[in-house]
Each structure stands twice: as C-alpha cells, then as structure tokens.
C-alpha cells in the first residue's frame, strides 16, 4: 500500500492539519478537532448549513464548505460517520440564530449520530432540521426509496441549500429547496477497482480485473450486478437506463454531474460525459448544468458515478448562484 501518510490510524487528523493550512480563507479549525467551519464573514446572519460524513471521499465533505455552500462540517474517520458530538459541535458553529439545515447522506451511522446530535442541539436551543440524501437508485427499489444511500447527489443538495441560505431564506425554505433538489436527483455508480482504507492495509472488497460492479456504493457496498467491463458507451447506457426509469425525466433541463471515484483518469470522465450528453439529447433532455470531475470519491477506487437532476426555474437559479469551495466553484455571472 503506497500511500502519502504517516501513522495509518491518524490519517484523518493529519490531513485536516493540511486542509486548514492550505485554505484559511475557506476553512478554519474550531474547538472541536473534527469540525471545520467557514471563517466569520461579517455577513448578515442567515440559516447555517451543516454536513458531515466519513473521510476518504474528498473533496466531499469538507471540500464543500465555503461561500454559497456549507458553513460547517463534521469529519468522520475514513468511511465512518462523524460522532454525534461532532455533528453537535458543527451545529453550534454554523448557527447564526436562524437555525441550521443539516444536509447529509442516508447511512445508518450518520442517521444515528445526526439524530443524537439534533437532540443535544435542542438542549442548547439551536433548531436543526435535516434533509437526508437518498439519490442512489441502485441501493433500493423505488418503494423502499427511503433506504437508498446518498451519493454524489449530495453536492446538488448542498448547492441548492447553500444558495437558498445565501439568499436569506428561512430555515423551512432552505430545507424545502434542499429537499426538492434531492427529490429531483438520481445517481448510480460503476466500480472498476477496490480501494484500501489506510488503517486496514488491504482492500476491503474486490472487483475482479475485467469486471465492473454496477451500482456499487461509495464504500464498496455491493451493487446490483457484476458484469464484464463494457465499453464506455455501454456504461453510459446502463447507468442512464436505471436513472431514467426511476424518475420521469423528459423534455426538460437537467443538471449532469459525472464524478470519478478516485483513480479513474479525468480524460475518461470526459469521455463518459460525451456519451451521456449525446444520449440525453437523444431523449430530448438538455444538460443545462454540467459538472465533470472528482467530486465525490472513495479513496483510490476506480470507477464513475452519474448524477442527474431535474432542474426547474428555482433549481436553475440556485445552481447558477455564485459559490466557492475546494470541490465546486461557480463564478459570479
């Protein structure tokens, strides 16, 4: 395992040191060692946006802290939910007296820790409302959509919620927009090789050479089918078929987000984007917002995910709003 680390059990701590040194304009340390926040800005108080999740998915989650996006983030161990106390501390850091929107992904650990943290925050009179991303169509059938994982669609949720908060909207409005964003978002991933948690020292799952796992999760959770590696064009077809069957897309504008899972070269992500774009247009769907890059990764896993969002006037406005962060920047028009 050839890594750029010191003690494998301390990668999260060590990495956070570097993050705050590299981006003091975006992220500062707090009293809680696993919580980072935007530096105080002197802007008018607004709804605070919090997220959190396991490490190893960089730029998610801390890479989406910044103007127009997230205010504070709770950072977990590699592939493990942050603690309840971390989420609680993040709520305190983000709160500006207007309440906090906690926008996170649907994993057992995160659900439990957020639940406990919301209770703790209530004792401090900090109102926290939540939206739980469940965009991964491969992780449960439509009638069990509440069991679905949150994956790269979380970025769209953060962007929508963050932009709405920046507009000065109320907590309920922010929650409604973030919920709307995720309700209109579907994702699916294809895994092409496994990854190794540093503290583990060996891959915690396997994808045989020459095979791809359709519907794989961000931690190597098994997908819906293991198939021989297909040409990129077929991969695009397989993924779009699952997504389009799940939410009636058609005749409207969408946002397309292609994320690498870590080690797949950027040139391949663009190659896939070309096919996705072509196929969508053939379905009379217009990619209005386009994101291609390593937005939500799983250490050095090879593979890709595709995230589609139906974009109405409101979501279009929120996606276009300026934002700045490690993972996503939108220039002022």
């Amino acid at each position, binding site marked *: 395992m050839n890594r750029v680390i010191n003690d494998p059990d301390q990668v999260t701590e060590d990495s956070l040191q570097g993050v705050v040194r590299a981006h003091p304009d975006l992220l500062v340390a707090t009293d809680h060692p696993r919580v980072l926040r935007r530096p105080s800005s002197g802007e008018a108080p607004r709804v605070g946006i919090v997220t959190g999740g396991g490490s190893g998915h960089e730029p998610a989650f801390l890479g989406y802290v910044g103007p127009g996006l997230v205010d504070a983030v709770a950072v977990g*161990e590699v592939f493990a939910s942050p603690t309840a106390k971390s989420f609680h501390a993040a709520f305190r850091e983000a709160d500006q007296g207007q309440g906090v929107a906690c926008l996170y992904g649907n994993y057992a650990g995160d659900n439990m820790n957020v639940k406990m943290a919301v209770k703790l925050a209530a004792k401090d009179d900090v109102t926290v409302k939540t939206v739980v991303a469940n965009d991964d169509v491969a992780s449960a059938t439509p009638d069990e959509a509440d069991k679905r994982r949150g994956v790269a669609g979380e970025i769209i949720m953060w962007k929508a919620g963050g932009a709405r908060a920046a507009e000065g909207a109320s907590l309920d409005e922010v929650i409604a927009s973030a919920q709307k964003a995720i309700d209109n978002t579907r994702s699916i991933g294809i895994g092409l090789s496994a990854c190794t948690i540093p*503290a583990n020292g060996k891959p915690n799952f396997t994808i045989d050479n020459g095979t791809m796992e359709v519907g794989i999760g961000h931690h190597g959770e098994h997908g819906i089918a293991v198939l021989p590696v297909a040409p990129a064009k077929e991969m695009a077809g397989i993924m779009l078929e699952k997504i389009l069957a799940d939410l009636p897309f058609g005749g409207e504008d969408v946002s397309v987000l292609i994320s690498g899972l870590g080690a797949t070269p950027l040139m391949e992500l663009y190659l896939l984007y070309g096919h996705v774009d072509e196929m969508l247009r053939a379905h009379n769907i217009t990619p209005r917002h386009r994101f291609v890059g390593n937005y939500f990764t799983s250490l050095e896993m090879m593979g890709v995910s595709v995230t589609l969002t139906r974009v109405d006037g409101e979501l279009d406005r929120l996606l276009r709003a300026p934002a700045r962060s490690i993972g996503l920047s939108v220039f002022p028009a």
Partner: protein
Amino acid sequence: MSESITLADAAPIAIDISKAVVAARDHLSEIDAATGDGDHGINMAKGFKLAIDRLSGKPFDLRQGFATIGDTLLGDIGGSMGPLYGSLFTEMADTLDGKEAIDRDGFTAMLRAAEAAIVDLGAAKVGDKTLIDVLTPSREAYEKAVGENKDFAGALTAMRDAAAAGLESTRDMVAKLGRASRLGERSRGVLDAGAASCELILRTLADGLLARLAA
C-alpha cells in the same frame, strides 16, 4: 460459590472487554468486508483502545469502566458503532448507579438496558442480521434461566451460549439494516460483523463474572 461481585472487583472486566475487542480488530474487519465496508474492527478497536488509555492510571469500578467506554465511543467513534455501543455501555453503566455490587437481578436490569439502548436508536429486530441477533436472544436466555431459578453463574452460562448461537444464526440471514442490507440475498452465508463483536463483548463479560463467581 458467591452470588454477587463488587463493582470494584469486577472493574478489570471493562479492560478485558476492551482488550478483546482490540485483539479482534482484523477479524471483525474481515467479517465486515464480506458484506459491509470492512471497517468494523478499525472503528471498534480505535474506540476501545482509547477507553483503555483513559482508564489507565486511575482507580475505577465496573460502572465507571463502562461509563468511560460509553463516553469514549459516543464522543470519539463515529460510524454506527459509536452511538450504538456508546449508548449500550452508557445505559449499562447507568443501571449500576449507586450500587456496590452486581448480582443476578442487577445483571438482568443491565442486559435489558443494553438491549433497549440499541433498539431505541437503531430500530433493529431479530432477524435483521445485526448485533440485535446476539443481544436479544442473550437477554432472553438469561431471563429464562433466571425464571427457571438458575443461579447467577448458570444464567450467565446460558446467556453466553445463546450469544454464540445468536451469532451463528446471523450466518443464514439476509441483512435488512445497515450497509449490508443493500446486498439482499447476497448477504446470506456470512456472519454479521456487529453480531460478532457483540458476542465477543458478552462472552468476555460473562467469562469475567464467572471467573470471579467461582473464585
């Protein structure tokens, strides 16, 4: 044979449990890798190791030992295990509040609190392929033995056997909760990682108490 153990005498059991978990680190991760994300041993070992550090150097009793484990898991270990086992140990410690010793009925209260903590937070049911498949039958076997008027040692032995059987029962289950649940039928045929750690904890606890009862 004595029927009660002082919490001071039982204190090293908190360390025994922690050490057992730390030693099982790779084993637990391997089980988790089969259906989950392979980190169960890492998270657990990190938390229990931290608890050992925090307990070292100062005197404590079983209640304080469990409370420290609970606090450490809740405050420093995320994942599902932080809140689940954190609440479990915290609630177990709470049942020992103000007591000097643990006896057969005290242990019933402790087991009930442990189970309730997990169910409250995670809403798992027997058959979901989680640590509840160890915890619930263990608590039931213990209470059944008590109902049959077995002594503390006998009830502990019954619990320990039920824990082992409970763990084994997860092998043929299809996961319904947690990461493994997305696997469906593919989760069948392997043990559940949380069930394995739960069995280890209950076994080490039972063995520690049994050794002291026999002394």
